[in-house]
């Protein structure tokens, strides 16, 4: 029942009965004799008022008509679930957007309830597979016919703050469908329908970024949509920059409007918990607006941008970031002279650059980062991370060959996140390497690996096989970006790409090589030890929105640093236009059957008309 208030029309039923009882006032009709009628009445009990009502077909037709009308007003729906296969797959979206409250109490709870109802309505021998689709899809249960356990597991699902990995989920579902194509898939979600009917009648994947050759074959897929297009606004970006030679900070926040209507939003910026400034900004439907906040005091350690306009999802209405202290990092550049590197390093804030020649590379110590350009000491320094350009042969990794006049491409590595794809440049010559077991490729050409990174014992090492002077990399627009990221990746205690940490992301934490133990404390207070063992690669536990604390224990002290994890709204809500129109189509189709129910209003309406026609016929024929 979508509108249970419609059942109030049933109050008319007793009214009709009362009217008919009142109507029972008989008119006198003189006949020759009542003798035969008395005999006739002996056979049937027709004297009591109720018995008379019982025989009144008109009244019953009217009561039926009223009941049908009440049902119509109540917008009834019948479960259409029909499991012929005996195998059911439940895919439940538990991402951030499922916390939206446009469906009460929220989308996730509604989906959970419907999923449990569906399980309960299945046969006892039905085999269930339960997949929870969050930042990564997880198979919680596989091929079990224990309904109680399935319901228990559904009740145990916690909705997360992360974005949904719809691509991974589709791949997982597809792989399971390939094993058993008769499984009936029930997808409970709020985003784009990953399955929609194509013109050929097959079910194809229409999700953004998903290979079009991925198909759900067969017609046994139900998509239960929980989305009423409520108004949602979000702070999708908050970043800052300390102005040179100034004690001021400039912040940038991006305000997105994910609703279908333009909106005028009140946005506030808080510095260390105090209101600093407030703006009113107009954001068109489906668009975003940037707000620059200037003259923020340089001593500020924490920024938070907040939308004060209410919407269906509160969690993405604010974003925060930590402004790290001006701890100066010492970087040693060992080179015969590299103007490109020197220039780039000088642009990176809080970096103090030291230069040295190849002849002074004995007993190197006391730097946070060592950059060796065309040389390498016999003994690697023991207290900092290392970047190597065009290194000589050594015992730490092996040369695979050389390449000349070559086109070098960047690999898919998180170092290049948010940069354009297929970054490449030309090199006059470069070394090629066998990728060590501890390494991850950073650059490659057609013949092999050109650059890689990894942990060598406790220290991070990044190796580039070319001399910058023999490439056109320094003149590329992305050169300073890449080099800044490379340096930030290695500077201890600083989060890499701190402005872009979202719930569910894998976070690269640059751990101080001297740290003995490393912990991460989540916003809910849970403390997770992430090291030892060393090296620490990426942290995958940032699934909550809020402030995390990175705690590093050294021999004599414990250092805590905070970092913000923000809502992954852009990934969760933003969709290409084509997908939006597809979603609208889906919503139109499923407007009244979004819970996987069959809308029975049309059959009821036909039945009502039939009843009215029968009543008219009965009345006109005096039956």
């Amino acid at each position, binding site marked *: 029942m979508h509108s249970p208030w419609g059942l109030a029309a049933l109050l008319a039923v007793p009214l009709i009965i009362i009217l008919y009882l009142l109507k*029972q006032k008989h*008119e006198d*009709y003189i006949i020759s004799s009542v003798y035969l009628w008395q005999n*006739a009445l002996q056979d049937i009990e027709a004297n009591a008022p109720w018995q008379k009502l019982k025989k009144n077909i008109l009244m019953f037709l009217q009561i039926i008509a009223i009941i049908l009308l009440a049902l119509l007003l109540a917008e009834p729906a019948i479960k259409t679930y029909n499991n012929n296969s005996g195998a059911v797959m439940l895919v439940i979206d538990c991402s951030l957007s499922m916390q939206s409250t446009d469906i009460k109490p929220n989308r996730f709870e509604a989906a959970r309830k419907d999923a449990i109802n569906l399980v309960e309505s299945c046969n006892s021998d039905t085999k269930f597979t339960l997949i929870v689709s969050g930042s990564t899809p997880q198979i919680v249960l596989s091929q079990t016919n224990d309904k109680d356990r399935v319901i228990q597991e559904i009740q145990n699902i916690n909705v997360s703050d992360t974005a949904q990995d719809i691509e991974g989920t589709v791949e997982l579902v597809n792989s399971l469908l390939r094993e058993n194509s008769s499984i009936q898939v029930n997808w409970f979600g709020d985003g784009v329908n990953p399955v929609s009917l194509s013109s050929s009648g097959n079910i194809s994947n229409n999700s953004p970024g998903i290979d079009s050759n991925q198909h759900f074959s067969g017609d046994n897929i139900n998509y239960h949509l929980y989305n009423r297009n409520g108004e949602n606004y979000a702070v999708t970006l908050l970043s800052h920059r300390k102005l040179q030679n100034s004690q001021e900070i400039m912040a940038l926040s991006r305000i997105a409007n994910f609703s279908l209507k333009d909106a005028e939003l009140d946005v506030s910026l808080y510095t260390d918990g105090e209101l600093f400034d407030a703006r009113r900004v107009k954001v068109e439907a489906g668009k975003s607006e940037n707000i620059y906040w200037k003259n923020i005091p340089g001593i500020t350690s924490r920024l938070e941008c907040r939308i004060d306009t209410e919407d269906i999802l509160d969690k993405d209405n604010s974003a925060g970031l930590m402004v790290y202290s001006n701890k100066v990092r010492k970087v040693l550049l060992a080179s015969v002279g590299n103007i490109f590197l020197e220039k780039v390093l000088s642009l990176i804030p809080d970096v103090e650059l030291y230069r040295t020649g190849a002849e002074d590379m004995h007993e190197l110590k006391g730097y946070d980062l060592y950059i060796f350009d065309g040389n390498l000491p016999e003994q690697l320094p023991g207290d900092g991370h290392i970047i190597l350009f065009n290194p000589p042969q050594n015992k730490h990794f092996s040369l695979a060959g050389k390449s000349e006049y070559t086109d070098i491409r960047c690999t898919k590595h998180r170092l290049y996140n948010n940069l354009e794809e297929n970054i490449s440049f030309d090199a006059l010559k470069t070394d090629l390497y066998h990728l060590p077991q501890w390494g991850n490729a950073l650059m490659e050409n057609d013949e092999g690996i050109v650059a890689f990174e990894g942990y060598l014992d406790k220290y991070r090492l990044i190796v580039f096989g070319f001399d910058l002077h023999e490439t056109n990399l320094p003149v590329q627009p992305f050169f300073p970006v890449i080099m800044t990221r490379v340096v930030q990746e290695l500077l201890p205690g600083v989060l890499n790409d701190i402005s872009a940490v979202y719930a569910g992301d894998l976070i690269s934490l640059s751990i101080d090589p001297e740290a003995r133990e490393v912990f991460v404390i989540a916003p809910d207070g849970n403390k997770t030890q992430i090291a030892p063992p060393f090296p620490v690669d990426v942290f995958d536990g940032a699934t909550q929105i809020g402030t995390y604390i990175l705690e590093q224990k050294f021999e004599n002290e414990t250092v805590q640093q905070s970092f913000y994890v923000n809502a992954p709204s852009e990934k969760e809500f933003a969709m290409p236009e084509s997908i939006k129109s597809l979603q609208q189509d889906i919503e139109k189709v499923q407007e009244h059957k979004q819970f996987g129910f069959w809308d029975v209003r049309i059959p009821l309406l036909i039945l009502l008309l039939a009843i009215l026609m029968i009543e008219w016929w009965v009345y006109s024929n005096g039956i």
Partner: protein
Amino acid sequence: MSRLFDSRFLQTIQQLTLSARFSIDGSTAGNRKSRSKGSSVEFSDYREYIPGDDFRRIDWNAYGRFEKLFVKLFMEEREAPVHIFLDVSKSMDWGEPNKSIASRRLAAALAYISLANFDRVSVVCIDDGIQNMCRNLRGKNFFHKITDVLENVHYTGRSSIQKSIESFSMQMGRGITVIISDFFSRENLNDIIKYLAYNKQSIYICHILSPQEIRPNMNESVRLVDSETMETVEITVTPSLLNSYSKALESFKSQMERTCMKWGAYYLNFSSDMDVAEMVKEVAEH
């Protein structure tokens, strides 16, 4: 001539006299003439003399010709007293066509046929007693007396057939009694017929009902009021009730028919929308 018995009606019943006749003992082709042969002016047949026959009936001319004794047989002529009891209670003044018209026309037609056959005809209008009557009329010339009586009846009282018949001093000997009524009087028909059979009557029970009594056409909830007793019955007409009524009517008629068969009476069932010729024909066929 009044509307009830117009010239067309008279024409009809005159034609009926040629084909329709009553017989006293009810045999098939009897008509008014008795099968018992006796002394009469109308010659019937010859048969050989057997000892014990009246010598006076020997046809001596035949003996001269055939040298055998033959006895002349003659039709014995009897006056058949015909009693027509017409129910004129209130219940008979109902229906469309009205039962009072159909019943009086039937009575008049039967009376006319009997008069035409030189029977002695008595027409008795009864309700809870004898309301009006004319008795022992012979010859068509007295038909107007009968129509006078029939035209001047009042349908007001309750019917009591047995009481009324018993109060009529019936002529002794064989005769014909016709009772025309709807028989809603709730009397025991068995007693009535038994009484008439005891009086050596050939009995014709003409049960006349209106079409509305045979197939009620009410379609509302009504309070039915009995025209004679003013008793009331509240009903809501439904198909099942009508079905039950139909069964009650059939049971009523079959009960009467069984009673008639038991005493050798004839049960004739009429609807007031039937033509009088049809009704007379049915009577005559019995």
